[in-house]
């Protein structure tokens, strides 16, 4: 099976700071890849490059048959965003819109779906994250965990082929992370292709097919979830040790 995402020798700097230093990896359809590492190791940047929020300095990214090079034209980005969903650490729900309106916005405006159809679809994805009764609430009326689940639903409503998760539980109180992780785990079970940046080691070990440990802008270690129990490099051992 050919990969749905392929990063080839991707590099990226912010000014003098080299954040990504020639990283390459593949993601196969239906698999879950977890990017882990210290803050500043480049994992979030890698994720943001994958859907064009950052442009890369060299290398190539192929994702859902779109090719991102060192320059990206606008039309390509829009097509890309139809196939790739993204969930952010800070939820980024639109505060002036209800939960339902947040979810229906892109299907209505971008996919030009009919209102009834968009509504039905919104209800469906909202039920999937267990928040159907919050359709008419505003984001500020929800807890952080609920807001993040709505953000996942908003992304799902566009029926993406791939979903990217950028530290989606980092801003949440510990007792609220569980509900979000459960939603992600069920998505993974249903066969969604997912790339996630996370600090939740137990979750990564249990759910990810591949774990990539990034260190100083490079892929330092890569393997199945079980790798976290038997690190082969001192850096990962130290990182995992700190995490426990």
């Amino acid at each position, binding site marked *: 099976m050919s990969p749905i995402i392929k990063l080839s020798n991707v590099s990226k700097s912010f000014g003098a700071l080299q954040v990504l230093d020639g990283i390459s990896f593949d993601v196969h359809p239906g698999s879950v890849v977890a990017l882990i590492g210290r803050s500043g190791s480049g994992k979030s940047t890698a994720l943001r490059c994958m*859907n064009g*929020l950052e442009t890369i300095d060299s290398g190539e990214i192929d994702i859902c048959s779109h090719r991102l090079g060192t320059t990206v034209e606008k039309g390509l*980005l*829009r097509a890309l*965003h*139809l196939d*790739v*969903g*993204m969930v*952010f650490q*800070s939820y*980024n*729900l*639109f*505060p*002036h*819109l*209800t939960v339902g309106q947040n979810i229906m*916005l*892109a299907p209505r*405006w*971008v996919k030009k779906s009919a209102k009834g159809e968009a509504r039905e679809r919104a209800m469906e994805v909202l039920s999937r994250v267990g928040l159907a009764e919050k359709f008419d609430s*505003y984001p*500020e*009326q929800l807890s952080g965990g609920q807001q993040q689940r709505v*953000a996942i639903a*908003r*992304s799902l409503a*566009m029926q993406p082929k791939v979903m990217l998760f950028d530290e989606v539980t980092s801003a949440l109180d510990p007792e609220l992370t569980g509900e979000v992780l459960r939603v992600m785990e069920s998505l993974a079970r249903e066969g969604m292709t997912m790339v996630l940046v996370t600090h939740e080691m137990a979750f990564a070990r249990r759910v990810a097919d591949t774990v990539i440990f990034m260190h100083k802008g490079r892929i330092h270690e890569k393997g199945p979830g079980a790798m976290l129990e038997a690190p082969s490099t001192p850096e990962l051992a130290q990182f995992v040790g700190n995490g426990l």
Partner: protein
Amino acid sequence: MAYQFDFSFLSEYWPELLRGLWLTLKMSVLTIVLGFLVGTVLAIGRTAHSAWVRRACGVYVEVIRNTPLLIQMFLIYFGLASLGLKLGANFCAILSIVINISAYTCEIMRAGIESIRKGQLEAAQCLGLSRLQTLAAVVLPPATERVYPALTSQFILIMLTTSVVSQISAEELTSIAARIDSITFRSFEIYLVVALLYILLAVAVRGTFWLIARLVFPRLRRLGTPL
């Protein structure tokens, strides 16, 4: 002090005052709507990618905000006339007020637009919204809601500002007052009455804006909390 106040002129001239009030109101609504639209476009211009667009909008705002409306009005009214363009006093008045107010609205709206966090734009982008769609659905509505109190104060100022039009035209409230004054010589009384009318108008405008906010910001209507 034996001055005898005499408001008897009111019985004869109140229809004229009402007509003046009506024109002031119409002028205010027109300049508020147009000023808001032009000001918002300018605010978008001030946050544009192109440095030239940003700079041009910036110069416009600075020049307008640092010169008196009266001079701007004279320049447009007498200036256009000297070029052979007879556009009518009311038209020139509205044009100069719109130009003036758009510069202020621009700065208020810019503050609103800049208050929108970058994550909101990224989320919109990741959902596939175009730049224009993002602006219309994600940026402008909450930006407007956030600066709405400042906009309201500014719009009441515009309503009061229309009195300056009396210096070139002769139909709105202040001009009518001047005319009645020149006939009746009850200067103090007439301006007292007009002052009262402006206060009532200001209260009415404030109330109207409160209502409009409840209509156009459903979140505010339901929750009542600031955004």
